[in-house]
C-alpha cells in the first residue's frame, strides 16, 4: 500500500471512530445510560398512600429519605409504614413527631409487613423520633438494622423488635421512653451495641428499663451499651433494670448499667446459658447484678465490676 493510501485509510478510520463517538455522545445525552436511582423523598405522614404517590407508605424496594421534619397529628397512626424488603431509609437529621399523650398503638416508623416477613430494612440517622407509642417497630423484619437514631419520649418503647432474626441496633440514643428503651421478643441472633439507653421507664407502668430481651429472644449479643438511670416509675415497680434477660444463650458484655431503679443487669428465673461478662454496674437500687436462678444455673458471670449482687456465683473482675 502506498503512503497516500495508508494515510487515507487512517483518515477514514479516524472518521469512523469519530462518527461512533458522536453517536455514543448523542445516545448518552438522551437516555442511554441510566443514572443511579435517586433517593425517594418522604415529606408527609400518610401511611395509607405510597411514597410514589406523595404518601409515606414504603411498599417497594429502594432508597428513601427525609427532606423535612414530619409530624403525625392523628393518634394511633404510624408516620412511616414499611412493607417491602431491601429498603434503606435515611432520616437526614430530621425529626418525626407524633401526637404524644398516653399509650397508643402507633410508631414513628413501623416495619410491619401484612403477610410474611420482609428482610434487609435499614433505618439510618441521625434523626429524632418522638411522641409516638413506639419510636421504631420492627415486626417480622429479618436482617434489618437501625443506626444513629434518637428515639425519645415515646410512651412505650424506643425500639421494638418482634419476631426479628439477626437484627442490628447500633449507636442509637434511646432515652426517656415510657417503658423500655429497646425491647425484643422472639427475636434471635441480633446485635445490640454501642447504644445509649438511659432514663427510660419514667411513666407509671409496672415495667420499664433499658434493654429487654424477652421470651424467645435467644443468642443475641448485647455489648458496649450504656443503660443507666432506667426505671424511674413513681408507682410500684415490678421490673426495672438496665438490661433484663428473659431468654437463653445471649452474650452480654462491655456494658455500663448504673443507677437503675432495681437491677443493673438481671437474668430472670428460667433464663439459662447466658454469658454476662466484663460489664460495669454500680449504684443500682436493688442489686447491681442479679441472677434469679439457683446457683446461676448455666449462666456464666465473670469479670464484672459491681458492688452488689444476689448470689456468690455472680463473679466480679479480679484485678
Amino acid at each position, binding site marked *: 500500500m502506498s503512503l497516500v493510501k495508508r494515510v487515507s485509510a487512517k483518515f477514514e478510520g479516524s472518521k469512523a471512530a469519530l462518527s461512533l463517538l458522536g453517536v455514543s455522545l448523542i445516545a448518552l445525552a438522551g437516555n442511554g445510560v441510566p443514572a443511579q436511582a435517586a433517593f425517594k423523598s418522604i415529606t408527609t405522614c400518610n401511611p395509607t398512600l405510597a411514597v410514589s404517590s406523595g404518601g409515606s407508605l414504603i411498599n417497594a424496594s429502594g432508597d428513601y429519605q427525609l427532606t423535612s421534619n414530619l409530624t403525625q397529628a392523628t393518634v394511633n397512626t404510624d408516620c412511616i409504614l414499611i412493607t417491602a424488603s431491601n429498603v434503606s431509609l435515611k432520616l437526614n437529621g430530621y*425529626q418525626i413527631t407524633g401526637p404524644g399523650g398516653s399509650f397508643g398503638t402507633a410508631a414513628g416508623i413501623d416495619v410491619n409487613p401484612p403477610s410474611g416477613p420482609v428482610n434487609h430494612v435499614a433505618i439510618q440517622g441521625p434523626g*429524632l423520633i*418522638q411522641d409516638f407509642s413506639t419510636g421504631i417497630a420492627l415486626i417480622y423484619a429479618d436482617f434489618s438494622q437501625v443506626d444513629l437514631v*434518637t*428515639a*425519645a*419520649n415515646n410512651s412505650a418503647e424506643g425500639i421494638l423488635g418482634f419476631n426479628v432474626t439477626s437484627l442490628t441496633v447500633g449507636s442509637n*440514643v434511646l*432515652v*426517656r421512653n415510657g417503658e423500655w428503651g429497646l425491647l425484643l421478643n422472639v427475636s434471635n441472633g441480633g446485635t445490640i451495641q454501642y447504644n*445509649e439507653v*438511659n*432514663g*427510660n421507664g*419514667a411513666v407509671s407502668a409496672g415495667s420499664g428499663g433499658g434493654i429487654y430481651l424477652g421470651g424467645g429472644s435467644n443468642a443475641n449479643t448485647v455489648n458496649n451499651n*450504656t443503660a*443507666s*438511670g*432506667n426505671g*424511674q416509675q*413513681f408507682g410500684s415497680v415490678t421490673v426495672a433494670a438496665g438490661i433484663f434477660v428473659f431468654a437463653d444463650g445471649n452474650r452480654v458484655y462491655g456494658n*455500663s448499667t*448504673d*443507677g*437503675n*431503679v432495681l437491677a443493673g443487669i438481671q437474668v430472670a428465673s428460667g433464663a439459662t446459658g447466658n454469658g454476662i461478662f466484663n460489664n460495669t454496674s*454500680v*449504684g*443500682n*437500687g436493688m442489686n447491681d447484678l442479679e441472677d434469679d436462678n439457683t446457683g446461676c444455673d448455666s449462666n456464666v458471670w465473670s469479670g464484672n465490676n459491681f*458492688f*452488689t449482687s444476689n448470689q456468690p456465683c455472680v463473679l466480679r473482675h479480679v484485678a
Partner: protein
Amino acid sequence: MRKFTLAGRGLVHPCYAIGPFGGPSCLQPPGFSIGDSPTLSTPWQSGGSRMVVVWYDPRPASLCPLWFQMAAPSQSLVITVLTVLTVLTGLISIVALMKPNHDSVGSEGARGRETLQARHRKKENTRMKYINRDLAFVTGILIALAGTAVPALAVTSITTCGFVISAPGNYVLNANLLNCTGDGIDVLASNVSVNLNGYIINAGSPSSFIGVNVGIPASPIRLNHVGIQGSGLIKNFVAGVNITRCDYCQVALVTSAQNANGMSADHVNYINVGSNVLVANTGAGLLLSESVNGVVAYNEISGNGSSCPGSTSLPGGGTSLVVCGQGLFIEDSSANTVNNNTLSGNLANGLWQDHESQFSRIYSNVTDGNAGVGILIDGSGGNGIFNNTSSRGNGTFDLQDTNFACGTNTWGSNVFFTSNPSTCIH
C-alpha cells in the same frame, strides 16, 4: 503528652516523689497551684514527714485531676528516684568533662603558656569540685534513702460509722460501714485523704445524715486539701458527699446512689469532682453552690430525681429552689469548668446554671434524655458552651439560654436537635 519537670535539683530534704499518677492517695500539695514549678522553698509538711516535690504535672487541672501523695517511698520509687538522680549526675559529669574549653583558644597569644596552664588547672579543679559535690549529694541521698531518714506516713484505718477525722493524714476504709445512724465519716481537718478502698457506706434506709461530710459545721474556718477517693459506694444519706468551705478539695472515683443528693459542695474554691458515678439519687446528682474555679469532669450523673419531694433546700441554707431531678445544678458560682460528663436521663435538667453564675466553660458533655433541658443557662452571662457531643431527646429543649439572643454567652459546635433560641445556639 505529659511533660514532667525536675524541680529543686539540690535536694536537701529527705524526699518523696509526688508523681502524676500511681500513688495510693491524691492530694495536691498545699501552697502549690496547678502548673507551678515547686521549689525547695515550698516543702510540704504533712503528717510529721517533710515532703519535697520532685515531679509535677503541668497539665490543666481538668486533665490532671489527681495529685498523688506518696505515703512512703516504695522500693520501686526509691529505685526510680535513685535512677533519676544517678542519671542526672552522670550527665552533669559527662557534660562537664566533655565541654570544650573555648576560653583557652583566644587567650593563648595574649598570655603566657604558664598562665594558660594555670588557668587550665584552676578550671579543671573547679570542674572536679562540682563533680565531687554532685557525687557527694547523690551519696547523701543514697545514704538517706537506705537508712531510716524517711519516716512513713501513718495510715489510719476506718471500720465504724461516725468516724471523725480531726487531724491531717491518710485514712482508709477497711470494712463496709453499714446501717449508719449518723454521718458515715466527718472530716474536720485539712490535708486529709480518705480512701474508700472499694467499700460501702450506707444508712440502711434513707436518713438525714451524710455519707462523707467535709467541713466544720457552723464555723467560718475553711479547710483545704481534702481528698475523697474511691472506689466506694455511698447510699441512703441526705447527701452522699457534702463539702463545705474547703479549698483545693477533690472527690474522685466515688459512686453515690440512692441518696437525696449524690454530692453537694458549698462555698468551695478550686474543687475537683472527677470520675464519679452519681446516679439514681432521689433529688439531684451534684449541687455546686457559691463556689468558684472548680472542675467537674468525667462524671456519670444520670437517672437522678426518681422521687422528687418538690423542693430541696440548697446546702448552706438560705435559698430554697427546686433542685430535685437536676443532674448538675450550679448556683451562684463562677468560673467553673464542666467537661466530659454524662448527664442523661435525669428527671429535670441535665445541667442547670442559674442567673447568678457566670464564666463557666461547659464542653464535651453528653446530656441526653433529660425530662427538662439538656443544658440550661438561666440568665447568666460570659459562659462558653461548646463541643458538647450529644444533647438529644430532652423533654423541652436540648439546649436553652434564657438570655435575649443568648446575651454574652457563646454556644458553638454542639450536637443537638432542639434549642431555644435557635438563632444563637449552635
